[in-house]
Structures are given as structure tokens and as C-alpha cells.
């Protein structure tokens, strides 16, 4: 078995073991062991990648190709570069943290963990696929369990939220499928055979008309899950109803599929379409950045605040991708990673606060620093990371994005860039507002004085997410070099 296919087979084995298991204790133990192995594998992959990279200068390494459906030339084709390696690492960390946070799940634990791991298969598969069709299949595998996870284990108007989320993402998938097929049917433009293989299509000069037509479809198809304004509205409701681990996985990992897909498919395969359309989507993403931040300012539900904050932060990812240069792209990937860790951490903390106080309404909370100091302190740290404080990953990512965006010197780019940069102030306001109301101040409710302290599994979940945030923030060079190296072929495609 090759090093990448293990990322699919290990979760499948975990699921088989889960099916045979009995009760919460066995189920969570199996899931933890399974995700722990996954984490080990992805750490191992980072080292393997570096040593492979030293001797192999292909765009993708650890490539493997098996014909899956001959008639349409569909392959199970996999391979990774620095970008996917980083995202695989993100995924395995968030999944393990999610399992730890769900340690005490009450209803149908077995089924819950199975769905969670099915979801992770979709994500792992998506990140290693080099074949458009296979990639699309994994994309759907990742989205569908979401419906069950929210609809069954969610809270509040869960059926409504689950339905809304699934329908909007499915609608986007439909658009995406048209885009992908459009690319497929133009992949013989240079006289070769029709193919779904990304690396092969990248060599083909897809006609300009086709690029202009299919770029927006592919872009929107992916960007909806990346919370592109105005298609972001599934996210606040979805997050609010989802159980903690699902919010973590969804915001931390699943939403990253959007930016990754835009980058890997829409921009890499349709570069001229990207150049032609970028101004339009830049406007949308810049609106998303500032709009999300302002919308977050007025919310009182912690999950809504974080959902809108994600709209803002992920708007920055799309914004950076559309800047079409290496520095901004590096920033986009770093921002994806950074947001993944941060938002998963936020949702984990929100879950812990909710479990103890039974409310997510910040106006009802107050003085939590005094009663649950560990959770509160980490919340402050996560907040500072989220508002782009140096020393945390968000700063590194944002600065790459801003410096990259500043490389364009016409007035349109200057204006949208300055609008996006301004979001750092609004972000500071909504973060400190929550910290001020919820964590500081006098303790509002006497019953809070007896809140349960943090448990070991919660603590390990939190630290698992915090370490990379600080690690990237303090020593970003190795990661950013790994990403920059992999960006080279994409830049060449664009020029």
C-alpha cells in the first residue's frame, strides 16, 4: 500500500472496527486510535515529503495512477505537493481534536463517529486526488455526512439548518459539475484524448471562450463552500445547529476545500479565465471580508460570531487567490491552515462553554475568566490569534496576503486591498467585545461559580490545536518555503 492510499484505507478500517464495536467507550477509543494513527501518518508524510522533494522535482510526488472507469478515462490518480501535505496535516489534527472533544457524546455514539470519519475520508481523498472526477466524488463524500451529523446530533432548528446547508452545497456542486465537465470536454483541445487528470489538462491550451465560460462556474462551485459572499448564508445557521465536533471539522477543514479547489482546479486549469474574471470575484471577496467582520460585530450568539468571522477570514483566502501572485497565494494557503486551526479551536471552546453554561448568548455570560480560567485564557489567546496578533499564525498569513495584494499598483487593487486591510480593526473590535462581555467583568450568574473545570480530553484537544497556531506564528519559514516551492508551477501556468 502506498503512503497516500493509506489515508483512505486507515479510516475505512476504523469504520469497520467501529461497526463491530459496542457502546460509547469502545467507539470513542477506536476513533481516537484511528485518528491518532492518521495524525502519525500525516506527520510522517511531512518528513517523507521533504526527503522525496530533495530527489524528485516533479510537480506532484508519491504519484499513483489506477484506471477506474476506462470509457471516460477516469482514474484513481493521487499525488501530493507541499500544499496538500500541509492541508492533510491540518485535517488529521482537527479530526483527532474533534474526536477528543466528542468524548462524552450521548446519542448514538457509534453512528456519530462513523459519520465523522466518513466525512474525513472525503476530505483526505479530496486533498490527494489528481483526477477531477475522483476529486468530485470525494467532495460529495465529504458533504453528505454533514446532513446527517447536523440533522441528527444538532441542536436548535437542526432539520432546517441541515437542509439549508446541504441544499446550498448541493446546488453549488451542480454548478461545479458543469464546470468540471466543461473542462473535461475541452481537455482534447490540443489533439489528445479527453482526460480528467489535472496535470495533463494543465498542459493543454483550453480555448479562451471555454475558459471564460467555465471559470466562473468552477469558481462559484468551489467558493460556496468557502463562504463566498453572497453564498455564505448556509454557514451561520449550519454552524449554530451543528454539534461541536462537526462545527470544528466543517469550519476547520471542510470550508478549506473551497479555496483549495479554486486554486487547484479553477485557477490552475483555467488561468486565462481567472485573469479575465478576477476583478469581479475580487469585489465579491473584498465585500465578504469587511461585511463578515461588520456582521460579526452585532451578533450575540457565539457561534454566529464565529461563523461570520469565518466569512471574513475565508473571504481573505479567496481575495488572496485572486491576486494571482506567489506572495498572496502563499498567504492564502497559510490563511487556510491558520483559519482551520483557529476556528476549530474556537468552536471547541464554544462547545465547552455551552456544555457548562447551557447558553451561547454572550449577554447572559460574564466573568468566565474567574470560574473557568483555562478555557477562558485559551479563548483570549485564540481571539488574539484571530485578530492577527504577531506570534500567531494569522499574522503571518495576513501579512503575506497584504504584501501580495500590494504588488498590484493600479487604483482598483489599491482600493480593494485597503478595504480588506481595514478589516483588521473591525476584527479587533468584535473579538475584544466578546472577551470583554463574556470573559471579563463580574460573574453574572451565581450558578456559574460551580462550573466544572476543564477535563484531560478537552485540554489535549485544545493544546493539539493551539500548538500549530503558535508554531506557525513563531517560526513560519519552513512551512512557507514548503508552500512557496509548490507554488512555482502554478505561477508559471499563469504567465
Amino acid at each position, binding site marked *: 500500500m502506498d503512503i497516500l492510499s493509506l489515508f483512505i484505507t486507515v479510516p475505512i478500517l476504523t469504520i469497520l472496527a467501529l461497526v463491530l464495536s459496542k457502546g460509547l467507550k469502545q467507539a470513542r477509543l477506536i476513533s481516537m486510535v484511528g485518528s491518532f494513527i492518521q495524525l502519525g501518518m500525516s506527520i510522517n508524510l511531512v518528513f517523507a515529503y521533504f526527503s522525496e522533494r530533495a530527489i524528485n522535482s516533479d510537480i506532484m510526488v508519491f504519484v499513483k495512477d489506477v484506471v477506474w472507469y476506462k470509457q471516460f478515462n477516469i482514474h484513481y490518480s493521487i499525488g501530493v505537493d507541499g500544499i496538500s501535505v500541509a492541508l492533510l496535516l491540518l485535517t488529521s489534527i482537527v479530526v483527532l481534536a474533534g474526536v477528543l472533544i466528542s468524548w462524552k457524546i450521548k446519542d448514538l455514539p457509534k453512528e456519530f463517529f462513523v459519520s465523522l470519519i466518513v466525512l474525513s475520508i472525503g476530505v483526505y481523498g479530496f486533498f490527494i486526488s489528481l483526477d477531477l472526477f475522483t476529486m468530485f466524488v470525494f467532495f460529495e463524500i465529504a458533504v453528505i455526512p454533514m446532513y446527517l451529523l447536523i440533522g441528527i446530533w444538532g441542536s436548535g432548528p437542526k432539520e432546517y439548518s441541515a437542509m439549508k446547508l446541504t441544499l446550498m452545497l448541493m446546488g453549488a456542486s451542480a454548478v461545479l459539475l458543469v464546470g468540471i465537465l466543461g473542462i473535461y470536454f475541452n481537455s482534447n483541445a490540443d489533439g489528445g484524448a479527453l482526460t480528467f487528470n489535472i496535470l495533463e489538462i494543465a498542459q493543454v491550451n483550453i480555448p479562451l471562450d471555454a475558459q471564460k465560460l467555465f471559470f466562473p462556474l468552477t469558481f462559484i462551485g468551489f467558493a460556496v463552500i468557502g463562504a463566498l459572499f453572497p453564498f455564505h448564508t448556509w454557514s451561520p445557521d449550519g454552524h449554530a445547529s451543528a454539534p461541536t465536533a462537526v462545527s470544528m471539522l466543517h469550519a476547520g477543514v471542510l470550508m478549506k476545500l473551497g479555496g483549495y479547489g479554486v486554486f487547484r482546479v479553477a485557477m490552475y486549469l483555467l488561468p486565462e479565465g481567472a485573469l479575465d474574471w478576477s476583478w469581479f470575484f475580487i469585489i465579491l471577496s473584498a465585500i465578504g471580508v469587511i*461585511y463578515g467582520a461588520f456582521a460579526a460585530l452585532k451578533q450575540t450568539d457565539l457561534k454566529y460570531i464565529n461563523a461570520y468571522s469565518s466569512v471574513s477570514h475565508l473571504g481573505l483566502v479567496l481575495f488572496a487567490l485572486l491576486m494571482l501572485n506567489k506572495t498572496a497565494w502563499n498567504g492564502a494557503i497559510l490563511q487556510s491552515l491558520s483559519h482551520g486551526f483557529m476556528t476549530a479551536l474556537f468552536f471547541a471552546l464554544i462547545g465547552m462553554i455551552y456544555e457548562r453554561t447551557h447558553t451561547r448568548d454572550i449577554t447572559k455570560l460574564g466573568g468566565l475568566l474567574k470560574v473557568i480560567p483555562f478555557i477562558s485564557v485559551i479563548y483570549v489567546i485564540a481571539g488574539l490569534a484571530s485578530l492577527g496578533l*504577531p506570534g500567531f499564525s494569522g*499574522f503571518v498569513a495576513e*501579512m*503575506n496576503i497584504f*504584501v501580495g495584494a500590494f504588488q498590484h499598483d493600479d487604483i482598483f487593487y489599491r482600493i480593494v486591498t485597503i478595504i480588506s486591510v481595514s478589516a483588521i480593526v473591525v476584527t479587533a*473590535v468584535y473579538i475584544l467585545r466578546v472577551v470583554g462581555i463574556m470573559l471579563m*467583568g463580574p460573574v453574572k450568574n451565581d450558578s456559574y461559580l460551580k462550573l466544572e473545570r476543564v477535563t484531560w480530553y478537552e485540554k489535549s484537544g485544545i493544546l493539539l490545536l493551539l500548538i500549530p497556531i503558535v508554531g506557525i506564528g513563531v517560526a513560519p*519559514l519552513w512551512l*512557507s518555503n514548503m508552500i512557496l516551492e509548490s507554488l512555482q508551477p502554478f505561477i508559471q501556468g499563469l504567465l
Partner: protein
Amino acid sequence: MNISYIILIPIIPLAVFLLLGIFNQKIKPAISGYVGVFGLLASAVLSLYAAYQYFFVDGKVDGVYQIFVDKTVWMNFTETLHIDMGIMIDPISVMMLVVVSVVSLMVHIYSRGYMKGDEGYTKFFAFLSLFTFSMYGLVLATNLFQIYIFWELVGVSSYLLIGYYYTKPSAVAAAKKAFIVTRFADLGFLIGILIMGYYTGTFDFETLNNPEGSAILNWASTSFMGLSVITWALLLIFIGGAGKSAMLPFHIWLPDAMEGPTPVSALIHAATMVVAGIFLVARLFPMFYFVEHGFALNIVAYVGAISALFAAIIAITQTDIKRVLAFSTMSQLGYMMMALGVSGYDGHEGVGYMASMFHLFTHAMFKALLFLGAGSVIHAVHSNYLKDMGGLRKYMPITNITFLIAALAIAGMPPFAGFWSKDEILVAAFEHHKLIYYIGIFVAGLTAFYIFRIYFGIFWGKDKSYEHKPKESPLSMTFPLLVLAAMSIVGGFIPFSEFITVDKAGFEAHLNYPLATIAVSVGLVGIILAGVFYKKENNLADKWANIFGPFYKWASDKFYFDEIYLFITKKILFKRVSEPIAKFDRKVVDGTMVGIGNKTVQASEKIKGMQSGKVQDYAFAFVGGTVVLAIVFIYLWTN
């Protein structure tokens, strides 16, 4: 010169922070105090050694102080742009090391007494160490981005320390305000850095500041709205500096920041962090001076002068002694900005630059002393307000004497430290800009008046009968007072003009007797007036307040700047921007999506009737469809 050991100066407080921060619950308070003090003592010793080595042993080559840099790449942006982390040793960074070390050490020692018994004792020392680390990083920075990074870190330490009493709503609000106002100014700073990086291709101070370098020589190559883009960059960077140094109109956070514990006010909001803005302008001084013939530098001068005047007027009317000192700080910072703004470049022409740094140094000592003295008083009477004080000289002799020394120093009385540095500032202003000189001399008079107003109000004035008899603070608190008092006496005799000049070559400064005489007389008038008003209990002050009537009220209400800001944020940004966006999102954007969903359901409700099961209907549709298609095809065919 070997500078490798200097990296330890910031590393030690960082280590202390991590140690105290991570093992917060497990360390005994008594131990954490010692860890903090001794950690900083080590840094202070190294700083003083570095200063000695640099200024007296091997910093000079051919009579000119050299710049020593040791750095490594931290983050790559493009082929030319990257962030370095490193240390840069030049006269002003070494001087700042000394200032930060001395004041921070004194504040650490003082805090062991002042914060005794506080439940967050360990946390307090952890934050102090975090701040000191960030401040060292800031002054040692080798490039704009590094300074920005540590700039943000001192900002967050300030936030944490202002909000130290986090259960108190006013402290929470003050912390938030400080962070957000400075963050807003930092937005300007960041955009300035981005512009600077794009047009000059570097963030590096050494490259930027080179008078023969391309950054300075080519300033005119690109312009925007009538000004060079480099001037725009400098002005935006100055906005960042104005935010940290509480210049008009970004000053509103500083008085509120007094909600923090008093040692914090002394360290962060008087002596070190708030001078970061002045340091930043000084750091980029060659750029400010040469680009567009000093256009940006002129703005610095005006902003400084106006802030100095404005704050001094407000200081007279405040009744909370810490707020008086806060406005006093703002006023003195304005003085330093103003001095930089009127400075020339070569030799004696650069006296403004030298004077600004000199005043920064002396001010750090006497203002820290004033704050720590005020803290000692507050510790004794448990109130910040003048009305609760009076006649304390009998109970607190050491605090009284040291406070008097600091007051004389800030009032510019010879031979105390403030006299010498203030004199140089006034010389610079007199030589380069008469209007600013007059503002400066007027502010000097106001300064003497307001500082002796509180001095007499606290230690003389009415003899109050206290519920608990106030007593002198313990040695841990009075020792720093004595050290800083000594510095406030001898600090002025340091020949700054030999060490710190723009061209790094040094010059000989002489006391300008006519100007000094004028300044001292104005100061004396201020002191005497304050004595008449406040030394004995009388109602002269109220009478005069009535004479000024509405103007007095405006001043005591701080000219309504807070209200203006509140209006903009609460009424416009929250009510008119944020709330509508939040509603728009739920009602319009989401409404449309939900609407599409509902319409789909409705549409399918309607057309499902077509599946009626009646063969006649199907036949009709079939025939009708065929006819329509036939027409379309024939139409297409014939065209």
C-alpha cells in the same frame, strides 16, 4: 563590537514570561516576584554593560558611532521583501535599552510591595515580563516589519495590564479602548509599511535611512495626489506613532488607561511604551528629514506642539491625580515630537533630535517617579482624587521629597534633569520655528503650574483628618523612588549631545543663558501661582475657574473628544453600519436564498398537477409540443 550577548536582554524576560505564564497556578507568589525581579536585573545589567561598551569602549570608529546589526530571515515575501528578526545596535537603541531596563527594574521592585496580596500576583509579573520583552524587541528592531510585530505585542501587553483588574467594568472598557484606538492608528502604520515596502523594495532601516540610498534619493519618482508616495508612507507610519504616543486626535485612550495598576502606568503609559511613537519617528528620522524637504516632519512638529498645549490645558482641570499625570505625559510626549519636528540634520543643526532623545530619557525617569510616587500616595489613602488628599508631607516624608524632586524636574528647574533637556528643546524650537517656540514656552509655564497644583494639593493644602492614618510605604516601594529621584537629579548632567545625534558624530552643546533664563522664569511663575492657589486652603482656584467659565468646563470635559468618538463608533458604526449589515444578511441575502428554495417548492407544487394521469392531457401536451418544435425547426431551417 561583539553584540551577540545582547540577544539575551530580550530573551530573559521572555523566558520569565513563559515560566510564570505556564506555571501560573503552581508557583508561589513570593517566588514569582523574585523570578521577575532577578530576571530583569540580569537584563538591566546586560543593558548597562552594552551601553558602557558601546558609548565608551568600541562603538566609535573615527569619531562616529557605528551601527551593528545581527539578523536572520524570518519570513519571505518576494525576492526583495522579507521580514528579518534581529538586533540593531546604534545610539538610540542602546539608550532605549537603558531606559527600558532601569524603569522596568524599578517598577518590578516597586510592584513587589504595591501588588502584595493581590490574587493575580504571578500573572502580573508574567505580563510585566511579556511587556518588557516586547519593548526590548521593539527598540532593537532592524526593520519596519519587526518593529510593527513588537509594536503589536507591546500593545497587547498594555491591553492585558490595563485590564488587569478584569472584574471591574471600567478597567475592561479602558483596556478595550486602548487596544482598539491604537489598532486603528496601527492600520495607518501597516498601510504605510506596505507602501514603503512596495516603492522602496525594502523594510530595512539601514537601507531606508541611507541619505545616499535610493529610497531617499528617489522619493520624487512616484506621486499621489500631489505628494510623493514616500511622504504618504511616512505620514501613515506617523499615524501609527501618534496612536501609541497619544498624540491628538488618538490620545483618548491614555487617560482611561490609568485604570491599570499604578506601576503599569509608570512603566508603560509614562516611560516606555508611549515613547515608541517618538522612537519610531527618530528611527526613520533621515527619511522624515530628506523626503520631500521634510514635509512629513513639519506635520510631526505641528501635531506635537498642538498636543503638548492641548494636554497641558486639560491637565490643569483634572481632579484625579493619575489623570493629571496622564495628560502631563501626553503633553511631554508632544514636546518630544515637536523637538524632532524642528530638528535639522548635521552637527548642531540636529539639536532638536538630540533634545528629543534627551527629554525622552529624563522624562522616563521623572515621570516614572511621579507615577510611582502617586502610587505610593494612592496606596496610603486608597483614593485617586485630590479631594481625598492633603497635608501628606507629615506622614510620607520620602514620597514627599522624591515627588518634589520629580515635580521640579518636570517644571524645568535647574539643576534637575528636566531643565537641561527642556532647554535644548526650546533652543531647537527657537532656532527653527518661532511659533512653536512660543507654544513651547507657554506649555512650560502650564506644566509647572499643574504639577505644583497636585504637589501642593497632595502634600500641603488642607490638613485632612484621615480615617486610617496614612503611613509611608515599605522599602520595596520607597527604594525605587529614591533611585529614580537620584536619576532625576543627575540625569541632566549626561552629555547627551556627545552620544546621540543624527549624524552620530556628536557635538558640543552649550547652555543658552537667555533662553534658559526665560524658561526658568516662566516655570517659576507657574510654581508661584500654584503655591498661591493651592498651598494653603482657599477658594482662589474656584474663583478663577468661574472666570474662565465655559472654557474651564470644556477643558475639564477634555474638549469632548471622547463624546465625538463615542458618537462615531456607537451611533454611526454600530447603529448605521453594523446593525443594518447584520439585518441585511439575515433578511435580504439569506432571504433570497430561502426564497429560491421556497419558490422551487411552490413551483413544483404547481407543476405537479401536470402529472394528472389523464391520457388526454398527455396527448395534448405531446401534440402541442411537436407543433412548437416543428415551428422552431422550420424557422431555423429557413433562416
